[in-house]
């Protein structure tokens, strides 16, 4: 049995520059077929070549089932992915995997959205959904300068619920003011560069556990295990397989070596694709997806990076 994420060959139907160094691409099926469904916060992989895969949030209208819209920042250190995407032209073919969603919009009486730079992309459909449902929300959107901030025109129609913070005009986002008054009825959704996410996490320490939802496209810094990684035994319950995971291999490596077809994509703990259900074992979580509450619950783990502290890890796989 082969188990994988859906992959589609799509074409760039539209390419537009939406800010300095940011292009928006609208991808569609050449034959006009409907694309898979998705919900706010979802992202897709662009499979650029055998070794290069990059994740981009879907930022187009929710009702549009004919295309996927993404926005890509040309980053000097983007690992080649963003450079590659920037040379795509209208009519270029691209391979897309997904969509998937580990940043889902949970219903709540009120939302605070915080976006930094290109992190605005997953927030756009969230705002569309909240606004359509009549749920109160605010967006604080920071960027280096006005010209580098994408979708300001699109956001203008929301009036003063959107506060834009070009750094060269107003400095950094005023997080103590935005988050200084924890509300039990409010969920906070934040996407942006690591320093912003880290600052928001610190600022949300006084909020209820589970109130903050973040998404990262680069791995969260992880402290290495004291004394280095240790080996453990892996039991795949559904398949009836037992195998050893040596210190220099991941659970995902060992699962694949045993011939099991499992989902995986980024292999650095950011995309959430390889999530597996844990039956037993003391998990050493090293991903950038699960929340503190998820970790405490211990029901799921990302097998591309996370390990086991106890001698035996049993997965429902």
């Amino acid at each position: 049995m082969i188990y994988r994420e859906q992959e589609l060959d799509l074409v760039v139907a539209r390419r537009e520059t939406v800010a300095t160094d940011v292009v928006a691409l609208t991808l569609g099926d050449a034959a006009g077929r409907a694309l898979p469904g998705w919900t706010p916060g979802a992202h897709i992989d662009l499979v650029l070549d055998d070794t290069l895969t990059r994740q981009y949030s879907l930022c187009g209208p929710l009702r549009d089932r004919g295309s996927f819209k993404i926005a890509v920042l040309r980053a000097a250190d983007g690992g080649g992915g963003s450079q590659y995407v920037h040379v795509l032209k209208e009519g270029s073919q691209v391979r897309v995997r997904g969509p998937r969603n580990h940043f889902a919009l949970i219903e709540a009486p009120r939302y605070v959205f915080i976006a930094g730079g290109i992190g605005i992309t997953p927030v756009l459909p969230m705002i569309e959904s909240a606004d359509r449902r009549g749920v109160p929300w605010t967006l604080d959107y920071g960027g280096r300068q006005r010209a580098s901030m994408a979708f300001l025109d699109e956001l203008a129609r929301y009036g003063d619920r959107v506060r834009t913070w070009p750094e060269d005009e107003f400095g950094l986002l005023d997080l103590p003011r935005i988050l200084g008054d924890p509300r039990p009825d409010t969920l906070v959704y934040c996407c942006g560069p690591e320093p912003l996410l880290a600052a928001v996490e610190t600022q949300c320490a006084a909020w209820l556990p589970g109130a903050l939802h973040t998404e990262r496209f680069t791995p969260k810094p992880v402290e290495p295990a004291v004394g280095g990684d240790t080996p453990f035994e892996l039991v795949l319950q559904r398949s009836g397989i037992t195998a050893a995971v040596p210190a220099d291999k991941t659970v995902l490596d060992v699962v694949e070596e045993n011939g099991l077809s499992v989902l995986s994509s980024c292999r650095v703990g950011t995309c959430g694709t390889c999530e597996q259900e844990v039956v037993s074992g003391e998990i050493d979580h090293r991903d950038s997806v699960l929340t503190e509450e998820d970790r405490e619950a211990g029901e799921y783990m990302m097998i591309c990076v996370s390990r086991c502290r106890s001698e035996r890890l049993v997965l429902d796989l």
Partner: protein
Amino acid sequence: MSPYADVAGLDTAANYPLNCWYVVAASDEVGRGLLARTVLGQPVVIYRLRSGQVAALEDRCPHRSLPFSAGTLSDDEVVCGYHGMAFGADGRCLRVPSQENVPYGARARSFQVREEPPLVWIWLGHPATSTLSDPPALPWLADPAWDTFGETMDVDANYLLLHENALDLTHFPHVHPEFSPAPYLSVPPPLEIAVSETSVSYHRDFPPARLVDWQARTTGLPQDRDYAQRESGEFVSPGLHIDRMHILPDGDGERGGSYDKILTRAFTPVNGRSTMVFWQVSRNYLTGQLQISEQLREVHHATLLADKRLLEAIQGRAGSFPAGEEFNVSADVAALRAQRIIEDMLAAERGWHPAPGRAPATASS
């Protein structure tokens, strides 16, 4: 955890997302009368306006709660059978026979419906959320190049059991040996499963083999030759599953292209213990030939009926064993994934409920 962790509690479990389009009726069931249905535990009354449009109201007069379906449809007004109060398609009370004025705000709940012949879809979730999605596109059902027939079947089992059954092909040779394509009965080729945020699809390719009786009969293809076959299917939403079977002639002029048959099944939870199945069989070959439709109807009716009996027996065990007591095997992966998609939808709908007693450090007023 078992995919049916919830099954043990299915008697009361509302384990279906509300924010989803479900089929409420086949087009030909809805006319100039009042059709009563229960969908997701919600009684609704469905009827057709003079314009041909379909309307749906909560099946309860907001005055003294007699079901509207016990009343009458007069022009475009639903007239309650108790005091003769009349209501429009938007639910507004238009007339109270015993007085001149209509009480302020008197109205029945109305629901969004969308007719995509031959099916009528309903939205019971947040009314505004319906504008963010459309019922799944099923173009073959209305395409004149395809021949389609269908039926409605009630199954006394939770809708998840129907999805699980549809996503699991390994039961087929055991439950339906007489209808199994020949390669099913030897070693079936590996299944390829592909998932997205909201869908689970699968396909497999069978090496060339003889057609079994019913396949030969309903395609007109000879039984002394080998044909490759492809089978595919998709969990589209909590309300829809699609199966496709393709017989691939080797191109020696019998007919251009493959023989495609699509089984479209809308699963609509009546409540936690019962499901309406709106099934449609479409084919792109021998169209317009009634006897072929009848033969296919017999085959599908028989397999769906066998599954119905089996699932009702399973539902009969609901609540008699602790949750999580079933075990899973590798072939359950597609069903487990669909279950997860539904769980995520339910979690998003349940919304943010901070644990009581865990107030934020500096709670605001």
